[in-house]
């Protein structure tokens, strides 16, 4: 078993017993579900909208080279510097270089999962820069020195009391039970930072090829401020974020907000097409767009799972996943958790080390059902399982299945096995799940149906 798999099992074991955690997640997600359903019902036809979005993303991803080149050249035409980064270290070093060249001291950052993916904050802090997360949830988890719990709701696992304690300890604020006051404490703490910062780092939700713009979705206005006041702006995004046309946003913005947070559209959806242009009164004088591959092209090369690159990171699949709802976001040990994380992490970080995530699924299909761009998530989990076994077959399983096939294909042997089964049944019952049970790891948490007292054939014979 890989180290990651062992850690997953241990963390899952302890957190599923934590009733406080469970209560918190269930309450938060119940609220989410109610809001989402209300907003979904305002759609004239939710499933047609999803299909249209899936086709749009299909077009974008299956012509990625064309769209990406168009996107980059349109950006460059208006003075944006575009950086292409095949790997994680290259992206990190590119951004470190930009920041060094700009002689920055203080950096504000708005939410970017890609930055988590390349461990940007650690690298910049090691270089001696102060990096401040400006999204409230991210700000909270940064103070706690932990990764975001959820790709959309980073601090969903914390109560207001815990946050109040944290602020008291880290910021010296007075304790309070009011979410409003807590938010204002963070607002005050961050205001100065926006004004002081020399560099603003953002992520992006969509890259519009037609016009050469990125679109950033948020609710708080922190990304707006991050890209308004500092003199240098850096935007880091995965190459899969492309959408062909500006008008595609008319569909994708409501879809993302509805599936992700139960909103018609989020508070601010902002398009950036360049650094400050002639005649404009503010905005960064330099804008760097950093395009990250980091093994996305390997996922692209798998036609079966290519649609995983359609993901718009709405988090809907996490919210409905029975596994996520029980084990929580940190247990995964990955940048992207939940069903989509289980699907793509093996491609991004290695199948054999991360195949256990694809096994941590009941294959209920709730994720596929929830996905606004119709990614076939639960089938991809199955395909990962198949690929993992194909790459590194387990001989015990092979022998067991061969033997099973031989027995059930030989009537006499099959009948004999039934007899034996009936005889050892009481013993099996007694041993089930104990250390003496050879299949303990399976049977400890599962019941087997009892072996029937008679077979159907016998029952039929006796009836006549």
């Amino acid at each position: 078993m890989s180290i990651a798999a062992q850690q997953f099992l241990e963390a899952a074991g302890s957190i599923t017993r934590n009733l406080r955690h469970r209560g918190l997640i269930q309450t938060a997600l119940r609220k989410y579900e109610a809001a989402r359903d209300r907003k979904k019902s305002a759609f004239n036809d939710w499933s047609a909208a999803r299909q249209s979005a899936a086709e749009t993303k299909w077009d974008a991803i299956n012509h990625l080279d064309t769209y990406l080149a168009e996107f980059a050249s349109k950006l460059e035409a208006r003075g944006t510097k575009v950086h292409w980064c095949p790997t994680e270290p290259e992206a990190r070093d590119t951004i470190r270089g930009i920041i060094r060249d700009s002689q920055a001291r203080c950096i504000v950052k708005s939410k970017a999962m890609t930055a988590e993916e390349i461990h940007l904050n650690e690298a910049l802090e090691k270089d001696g820069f102060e990096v401040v997360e400006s999204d409230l949830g991210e700000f909270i988890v940064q103070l706690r020195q932990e990764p975001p719990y959820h790709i959309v709701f980073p601090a969903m696992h914390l109560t207001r009391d815990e946050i109040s304690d944290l602020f008291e300890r880290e910021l010296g604020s007075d304790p309070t039970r009011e979410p409003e006051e807590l938010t204002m404490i963070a607002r005050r703490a961050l205001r100065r930072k926006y004004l002081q910062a020399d560099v603003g780092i953002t992520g992006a939700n969509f890259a519009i090829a037609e016009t050469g713009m990125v679109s950033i979705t948020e609710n708080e206005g922190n990304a707006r401020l991050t890209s308004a006041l500092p003199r240098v702006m850096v935007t880091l995004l995965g190459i899969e974020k492309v959408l062909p046309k500006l008008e595609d946003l008319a569909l994708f913005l409501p879809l993302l907000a509805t599936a992700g947070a139960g909103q018609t559209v989020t508070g601010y959806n902002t398009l950036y097409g360049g650094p400050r242009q002639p005649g404009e009164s503010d905005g960064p004088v330099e804008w760097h767009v950093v395009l990250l591959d980091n093994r996305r092209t390997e996922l692209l090369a798998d036609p079966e799972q290519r649609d995983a690159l359609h993901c718009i990171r709405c988090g809907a699949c996490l919210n409905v996943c029975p596994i996520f709802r029980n084990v929580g976001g940190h247990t995964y040990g990955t940048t992207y958790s939940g069903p989509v994380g289980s699907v793509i992490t093996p491609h991004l970080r290695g199948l054999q080390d991360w195949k256990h995530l694809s096994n941590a699924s009941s294959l209920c299909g709730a994720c596929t059902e929830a996905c606004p761009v119709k990614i076939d998530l639960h089938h991809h989990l199955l395909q990962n399982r198949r690929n993992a076994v194909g790459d590194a077959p387990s001989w015990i399983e092979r022998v067991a299945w061969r033997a099973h096939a031989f027995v059930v294909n030989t009537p006499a042997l099959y009948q004999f096995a039934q007899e034996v089964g009936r005889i050892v049944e009481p013993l099996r019952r007694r041993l089930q799940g104990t250390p003496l049970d050879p299949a303990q790891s399976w049977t400890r948490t599962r019941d087997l149906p009892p072996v029937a007292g008679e077979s159907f054939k016998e029952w039929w014979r006796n009836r006549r």
Partner: protein
Amino acid sequence: MNARERILARIREALTVPAPKPGSHGHVHGSHPPHVGSQDAQPIGFRNRPVHEARAWLPKGGTTPAEHLARFAAASSELKTDFRSVDSEAEAHAALRRIADDEGWRRVASHHHALTDAAVAALGRTALFTDGGYPPDDLEACEAGITTCDVLVAQTGSLVVNSRTSGGRALSVLPPHHVVLARRDQLVSDLTDAFERVEALHGRQWPSMISLVTGPSRTGDIERILVLGAHGPKKLTVLMW
């Protein structure tokens, strides 16, 4: 080969094998095995359902101006946008003065435009105009930012500001109260219309930032409880005549 070429080459290599169409559950073009080059059957930009049709499945914005207005008002009240539809510019100015008095504004920020110039003059407060640059600390000290907008969207209760004709990137988001002055004919039905209108306004010379603003700044990051004014304005007022 530079990094750009390396990534593009990897993409092209990966795309030589076609992927199944969405909704086909893993079957490439019916039951036929995938074969190289069959992508040509799906030209770039192809959709079974063209995107401009997508509006038919989205939440409705209404078809008549009266419906647009009703829809915008309903969306605003849900979003906690203070939306006031008034009869004349003079009424809008009077409403603005009342808000300024109630909240005790001393300094406001704005940008030059026929609508804002008249409103700021009528308001009679010290005003910072952001056109041509400004010290950020001064803008931060203002109690309100008064701007125009490109278009308002009935479907979502949103409005669109930009960095060139709405006073820059920060004016609409740094002061704690954002006031938008708008004319009725700026209200359109849905996002598709809004993007069309924005494109018609700016044509080939896009501003560097275009923001679709939907309600005041908000967060639900603490126990999913809604709080307004996370980092941007706590209040958003739309005065329309």
